[in-house]
C-alpha cells in the first residue's frame, strides 16, 4: 500500500509503527526535472542553468519531500558512495543570476514580464510530482518563464515523453540501481534515445564525450578507472543540465512493530517475504 508522505510523518510517531532506517539501498532513488533539449529555448544551456539557479532545492526537500531525502548535486546519488562525486558544478539559489543568464541568452522580458512559455508534465502517479510541478511553475514565474502544467494518466504520460517527445519539461524519480551503468546511463546515452521505451533518454540530450565515457565505463574492468570516468561524466552533465537533479530520495517502508524481519535486504518492498513473521 502506498503511504502518502504526509501520512508517513504522522504514522511514524504512533507507538505501533516504525520506519526502519534501511532497506532500499540497492535503488538509490533520485528526483529530477528533465528538459526536452530539442525545444528552441531549452536547447540553450544558459536557459537550463538559469532554471537551476531559480530552484530552491532545500525548500523542495523540506516542503515537497517532507525531509525524506537530501539535496542532490548531480545525476549519481550519494547512496552510490564509490561513484558519487562532489566535484561538480552546483547552482546556488539565486534569482538575479538566473535573470542575468536569461538576459544574456537573449530572452528579454516582454511587456507582461514574460520571456517565454514552456509546458511541464509531472509523472502522474503520486502527489509529490504534482507538488514539484506547482513549485516549478511558481519558481519560474520569478524569472519570467510562464509554465503551463499539464495532467494526464500514466500511459498517456509515458507515450507523451518517451514516444512523441511532445513536452518541454517533466519531473519524475528514478533508480540509480547498484551501478550507474544500470540506472543512470540510460538517461544520458544518446544511443538510448529510443521511441516507445519508457524511462530512456527522453530529453534528446546527445554529447559524444558523454557517450564515450558511458560506453567505456560499461566495459572497463579497472574499478578506479570507472570511478574516474563517472566523475568526468558527472562534471559534464551538471554543466550541461539535460536533467536538474533535485534530491536523493530515501524510499522507506512503514511497518507495524508486530512485523519481524521485513527490512531484510537492500531491495525494500521489491524483495520477498521469506524472512517475515509476526511477533
Amino acid at each position, binding site marked *: 500500500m502506498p503511504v502518502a508522505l504526509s501520512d508517513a510523518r504522522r504514522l511514524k510517531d504512533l507507538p505501533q509503527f516504525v520506519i526502519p532506517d534501511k532497506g532500499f539501498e540497492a535503488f538509490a532513488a533520485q528526483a529530477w526535472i528533465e528538459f526536452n533539449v530539442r525545444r528552441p529555448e531549452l536547447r540553450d544551456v544558459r536557459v537550463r542553468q538559469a532554471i537551476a539557479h531559480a530552484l530552491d532545492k532545500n525548500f523542495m526537500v523540506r516542503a515537497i519531500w517532507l525531509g525524506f531525502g537530501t539535496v542532490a548535486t548531480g545525476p549519481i546519488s550519494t547512496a552510490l558512495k564509490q561513484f558519487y562525486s562532489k566535484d561538480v558544478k552546483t547552482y546556488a539559489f539565486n534569482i538575479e543570476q538566473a535573470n542575468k543568464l536569461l538576459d544574456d541568452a537573449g530572452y528579454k522580458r516582454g511587456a507582461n514580464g514574460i520571456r517565454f512559455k514552456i509546458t511541464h508534465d509531472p509523472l502522474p502517479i503520486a502527489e509529490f510530482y504534482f507538488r514539484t510541478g506547482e513549485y516549478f511553475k511558481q519558481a519560474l514565474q520569478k524569472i519570467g518563464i510562464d509554465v503551463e502544467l499539464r495532467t494526464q494518466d500514466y500511459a498517456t504520460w509515458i507515450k507523451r515523453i518517451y514516444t512523441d517527445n511532445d513536452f518541454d519539461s517533466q519531473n519524475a524519480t528514478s533508480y540509480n540501481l547498484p551501478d550507474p551503468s544500470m540506472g543512470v546511463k540510460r538517461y544520458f546515452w544518446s544511443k*538510448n534515445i529510443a521511441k516507445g521505451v519508457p524511462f530512456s533518454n527522453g530529453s534528446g540530450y546527445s554529447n559524444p564525450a558523454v557517450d564515450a565515457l558511458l560506453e567505456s565505463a560499461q566495459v572497463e574492468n579497472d574499478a578506479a578507472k570507472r570511478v574516474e570516468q563517472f566523475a568526468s561524466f558527472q562534471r559534464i552533465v551538471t554543466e550541461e543540465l539535460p536533467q536538474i537533479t533535485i534530491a536523493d530520495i530515501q524510499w522507506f517502508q512503514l511497518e507495524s512493530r508486530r512485523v519481524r524481519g521485513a527490512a531484510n535486504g537492500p531491495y525494500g518492498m521489491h524483495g520477498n517475504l521469506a524472512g517475515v513473521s509476526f511477533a
Partner: protein
Amino acid sequence: MARMGCTATWPASALPDIVKNSRIWRLLLSRLGRSAVIVAGILVVNFSLLHLAPGDAVSVLAGESGGADKEYVDRLRETYGLGRSLPEQLIAYAKGLLRFDLGWSFRNNTSVSELIWSRVPATLLLVGASVSVAVFIGVVLGVASSRRPNSATDNVISVVSLLAYATPAFWLGLMLIVLFSLKLGWLPAGGFRSADLDLRGFAAAVDIARHAVLPILTLSMFYSAIYARLTRASMLELAQFDYVRTAYAKGLSERAVRYRHVLRNALLPLATLLGIQFGSLLGGAIVIEMVFSWPGLGRLAFEAIMARDMNVLLGILFLSSLLVVFINIAVDMVYAILDPRIRAH
C-alpha cells in the same frame, strides 16, 4: 401505452398461456436477431474508442517496472500482437470471440474469461442485492407516500428521497465508512471478506454479508429514491382511472384495489426503468467498488483502463453489453407476464 378500462389481474393460467403464445416466441426471436446486430456494433465502437487512448499495455508494463531496453519492448509488442494494424487486431479479436475466446490478459498473465469469471460473483452480489433492495425500499416507500398525498408521511418520504437522490454515491460511501467503520467500528471499511481464510460455511457467509452491507446500501440509496418517486407518481395517476372506480364499485376492499389493481399496473414503468438503468447501475458499481475496494468487475475495468489492458476491458464491455441487451429482452418478456394486454396485441 393504452391503459383504457381493462383490469389487469393475475390469471391463474398466465404461464402456460405465454408458453403457448406464438406471438411471444416470434417477439423473442426478432429481439434476439436485432440484438446480434447491436452487439456487433458495440464491439466495433468499443474497439475503436478504446484504441483512441494514448499509450499501450507495453508502455505501462515496462514503465512500471522502471524501464527497459528497446529490444525487450519491441519483443513484447511483437508477442502481444500490438504491432499489427487496428483492423487486423479487430478481426483477430472477433475471430476469437466466435470461438468464445475473450483473449489473454498480458498484465495479469491469465485468460480474460478466467479473470472476468473470478470477479463476476462479487459484482453480481453487489448489483443484484442493490437492485433488490432498491426496488423493495422504493416500492414500499412509494406505496406508503401515495396513500395520503401531501400528508406528513408523504412529505417526510419526499424530503428523504430527494436527499438520497441528490447525494453523490462516492461521498455517501465515504461518509458511511467514516460513521460505521471509523467512529462506531461496527462494519469493515472495505474489501469482500476478511483476511481470515479459515472461515467456512455460515461464518464465511456472515463475513461476506458484513462486508457487503455498506456498498449495497450506498449503491441502492440513489435508485431507491428514484423508484419511490416513480411508484408514488404512477400509483397516484392510476388511482384516477375508470377501472379503479369500477373495481371499487364492484365492492372490492381498498386493500385489494390498491395492491391487485393499482400497484400491479404501477410496476410496469418501474420494470421499464429498471431495464434501462441496468447499464448505469453497472457503471455506478465501478465507483462503489473503488470506494469500498470491492473486488468486482468495475474495479477490474478501472485497473484495465489505467494499464491499457485492452483485452480485459473489451471483454468486460462486451459481456456488460450482452448483459444489458438480455436484461432488456427479459424486461420485455416480464411485461407480457405483468400485463396480459401486451400478450393480446
